[in-house]
């Protein structure tokens, strides 16, 4: 399995120490990339446009943004049984996420992750939403079910 990364890693922008999360492998493989985090469940059919990998659901916090090539952290799947087929299409159309991290297991998200074939992990030893923020650099080793998070350095605000 090759390592996929669509954005170049710029070490200056990130902390040098990684925060490590352990979980359970859903789909094996290695990937790294920028994190995209949402607290909203994701709808597949009718909620994602596979041509662009963008969320299209009205009132979704990621509406209009594409997860293509990102390490996508989301709570889980909702909506139609077309979920797996929509994510399957993102792989065929080249807009799939680089990796998928989620916390709620359902048949929709399990099958969707399998057919997307992106490395995927669940059942973490700590809440990933407390650790991973959009823009962090995340290394996913799904074979070992380990996630390394390099937090993006924030510029001091104010002073």
């Amino acid at each position, binding site marked *: 399995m090759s390592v996929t990364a669509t954005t170049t890693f710029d070490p200056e922008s990130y902390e040098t120490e990684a925060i490590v999360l352990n979980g359970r492998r859903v789909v094996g493989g290695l990937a790294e990339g920028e994190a995209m985090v949402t607290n909203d469940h994701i709808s597949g059919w009718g909620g994602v446009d596979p041509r662009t990998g963008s969320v299209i659901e009205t009132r979704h916090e990621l509406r209009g943004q594409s997860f293509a090539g990102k390490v996508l952290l989301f709570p889980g799947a909702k*909506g139609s049984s077309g979920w797996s087929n929509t994510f399957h299409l993102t792989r065929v159309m080249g807009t799939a996420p680089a990796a998928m991290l989620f916390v709620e297991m359902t048949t929709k998200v399990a*099958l969707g992750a399998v*057919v997307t074939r992106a490395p995927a992990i669940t059942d973490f030893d700590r809440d990933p939403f407390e650790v991973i923020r959009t823009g962090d650099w995340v290394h996913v080793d799904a074979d070992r079910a380990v996630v390394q998070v390099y937090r993006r350095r924030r510029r001091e605000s104010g002073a």
Partner: protein
Amino acid sequence: MNLNDDERAMRDGRDGPAVAKAMDLLCRYGEALGAERLVDVRNVAGTLGAATPFMRDFALKHGGMDAVFSEFNLDSDEVVEVPPFKVYTTHLQQGLDPERPKEFNVPEEIIRIYRKGERYAAERGMQMVNTCTPYLVGNVPVKGEHLAWMESSAVIYANGAIGARTNTEGRESAGAAALTGKIPYWGLHRPENRLGTHDVRLEVTVDTTADWGMLGYWVGEIVQEQVPVIDGLGPVPNLARLKHFGAAAASSGGVEMYHLVGVTPEAPTRETAFGANTPGETLHFGQAERRATWEKLNTTARDPKVDYVMLGCPHYSIEQIWEASRLLAGRKVHPDTELWIFTPRAIKALADQNGYTKIIEDAGGKLMSDTCSAMSRGAPEGTRVAAFDSAKQVHYLPAILGIQGWFGTTAQCIDAAVNGRFTAGPEI
């Protein structure tokens, strides 16, 4: 995943490459879920639909319908020859009605591909009922029967109303189940996951189909993916009412299983329905909840002038077509409004024979099959405002097409089609 000898032989190629690919997918899927084994199924509801320009191009480039099935129903990189299905499989709703190319604005070429796809599926033993309601047309499971079904409204009907056992499968897992007769033993296949989690009491009479749709929409939003137990029932609901209730609960939430105390097969009593589970605080469905749900369902509706009335989500039963034809008899649909009613093909044949189709057509309405507006993204040209008797359709279609949507009873919707205006309020 622990496979038995038969399953291992399938995985290792005893029954040919397509079955081996199917078993490989079921193993990957089962491991992803954390399942320990597979369970036998003799009943599958899935889809092979390929009548879109993207699928047409995919088939042309990669090797026809076998290539489409290999990729999108088996998740196989290799194109395998697809043998006849091993178990009884029914086809769910599709993306258009092939008898209505004009209404769905599709060129002849796509209709040809549709017919070709149907032949391909039928030759492999798939029942081309083309409906989200397989239980209306010859696929009625039995309590305790393990299934591999897609389509959220059918899954909740099979689990809740019938007591059969299925998770919400996807296109790929249903394809693999059709070739192997297997699905991961996980989720609602396991008795302990079918027990109630939420205690719900009715404090208003829930009687009409619209009432049941509102109750489903309300409870789904609260319990999300869990299992409500509803007590305090009035009149026993019939098939159409449970169809609308389940479809709504699976739209506002992801409900796949429910209990109606004294009515559904796994809830002879409240205690049986909860089993070892202890529910939290009791939820009450009273006048205020009903009113708030009506408001929610009518969120997008402002303009009373209705361009389109859509009935048949989930697909109408023959009883509902009969009811609609009685409401329409001797009346005319307003010249600025269209009325489309959707039903399975087999029920349309019955409606033709009974004369209901003629009544609907004489009034200016259309009876269609195989699809619906949400699946096809098809509505009369220029539709700005629509009216529905389905909580599920009013949840989806306004978002999909960017239109306004009214929710009301079947009679209010028929009145709206005739008058060209939706005038009913929340007291329905």
